[in-house]
């Protein structure tokens, strides 16, 4: 990952889980004062050892989540517009080598979402298309219930496999901003 991307993700992660707690790779040293506008946020169990769930997002908000995989082999960054419950949505995932930050082309890639507390996944079978080396577009995602989901991205390439699991708290469908 280049310095600019590290800075961006570091600053954004600070929104959800605090600068120091969010990183394993040393990027916590990035000064919050250097943060760009917080249009995107990164929250991931890999980035957030505390396991704090991703903060709920209003439907339509662009989110960027993910981080290093559980084996430290690949790095996954998932970008999508926060979906409404029970509506199809798409995700773009960038898979890079965790050590070299180079894109991982031609991987066997999958993206799924499950509700561990409920013992089920999605009722859809998403389709994945590699738009550019290491950059995947997944269509057909649908979170049919509000509540705690785990979004899982998995890649297999060059005999190496890695997976990242991102908690996602799906809010109920709301017509507009929540203002009691």
């Amino acid at each position, binding site marked *: 990952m280049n310095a600019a991307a590290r800075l961006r993700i570091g600053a954004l992660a600070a929104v959800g889980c605090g600068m120091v707690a969010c990183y394993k790779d040393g990027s916590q040293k990035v000064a919050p004062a250097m943060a760009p506008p917080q249009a995107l946020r990164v929250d991931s169990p890999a980035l957030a050892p505390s396991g704090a769930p991703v903060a709920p997002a209003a439907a339509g908000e662009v989110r960027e989540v993910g981080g290093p995989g559980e084996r430290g082999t690949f790095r996954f960054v998932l970008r999508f517009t926060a979906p409404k419950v029970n509506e199809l949505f798409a995700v773009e995932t960038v898979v890079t080598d965790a050590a070299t930050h180079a894109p991982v082309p031609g991987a066997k890639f999958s993206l799924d979402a499950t509700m561990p507390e*409920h013992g*089920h996944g999605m*009722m859809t*079978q998403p*389709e994945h298309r590699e738009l550019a080396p290491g950059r995947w577009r997944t269509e057909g995602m649908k979170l049919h*219930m509000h509540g705690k989901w785990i979004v899982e991205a998995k890649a297999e390439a060059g005999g190496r496999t890695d997976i990242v699991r991102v908690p996602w708290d799906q809010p109920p469908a*709301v*017509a507009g901003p929540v203002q009691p």
Partner: protein
Amino acid sequence: MGPTARSRWTRPALRNRGSPDPQVLSRRTHRRGARTAAACGLGLAVLASCAPRLDPDAPWSASEFALLRSLSPVAAPAPNAGNRFADDPAAAALGQALFFDKGLSANGQVACATCHQPARRFTDGLRHARGVGEAPANAPTLLGAHSVPFLFRDGRKDSLWSQALGPLEAEPEHGFDRMAAAHHVAARHRQAYEATFGPLPPLQDSTRFPAHARPVPLDRGHPHDRAWQAMAHVDRAAVDRVFAHIGKAIEAYERKLVPGPAPFDRYVAAVLRADPAAATLLPTAARRGLRHFIGAAQCVTCHNGPWFTDGAFHNLGLPRAAHAPSGIDVGRSLGAQRVKEDAFRCGGLHSDTKDCPELRFLNPRFADFLGAFKTPSLRNVETTAPYMHTGQFATLAEVLAFYQSLPGTAEVGHRELTLSLVAQDIDPVEIIAFLHTLTSPLPDARWLHP
């Protein structure tokens, strides 16, 4: 819940499905409250939460507020690209005529409106729909049917227009066939049909178009199937096209069936504008019931959105109805396969769109589809008894008793882990009082008769 508890819900007062009597509900609520308090005070309810009674007018939390916003109001049907006549007034007028037309049945006695009676919020009050014969399932309301991506209890259809064709050829329902339906339209609705959909095929040519014909995949020896197979491919396609147009006209009509605001909608609107009079718009028991519904009882997990349904499929582990037809209904696991292959599916020959993401991404092998059935809308549920897909429960009290006991195991598949017991210290009478506030005025009267 044991037999003693279950017997509570068989009391005559609770079997009355009429509008809630606030005084009766209030008395019952107080009795229930007293019982709960006594149990907690005596230390009898070891595992019960013994939570203090809900304040029906406590400030809504941000998450509760979000849930309220998600449940109201009901919107007009979204555009349906699969039916370019969906919002065509002339198609709706023809669809209305067809909906009430008993000529579209084998015995001339069954119309769509036979089982979807307007005065009963488009249901029939029976456990199993009764057409030419007895159907294997309860007739669901049509109100809100447009709001879900898949139709029928097992989701074997993916549009209202395609759904409408199923009962016409189902032997226990209309018992009709598409060839006869086309002849009937030519005889009784030709002008309206051709004004909207263009010329009918030369149906008077009996050498090409027999009196009765339809595909019967499970009985290739059926006279209707033999007649169908004997027809030229181009003629079969022409009849299929007329049949699809019948469905599209009926959909155009059904999209007009938008009910007025329910008391719950007026309450939510008042809450949203911070109207201090909001509390006066629903009975106390109903306001408590609403808090149970979106709170501890977790009803809103599946009954969500403006139509109180997630449009999804769940295995509740329902008891087998004593009057159930023989054989096991595997529900969505078969329906998901059927809809992918249906001749009148989205993206098919007679669909007006090729953009069908719901069908494209549907996973027919989703494991929990086995024994799963579609979540029904709860709007107007007070008026649509009996309940569940084969009418297992006669009253809402029986339904709530089921959710507070979850007896037995699933007949096929397994009961969904999502489904947790509704706690005993939640008064089902309050939830039922809330459900009564979802009863809307009927749609505009001009749509309620031929």
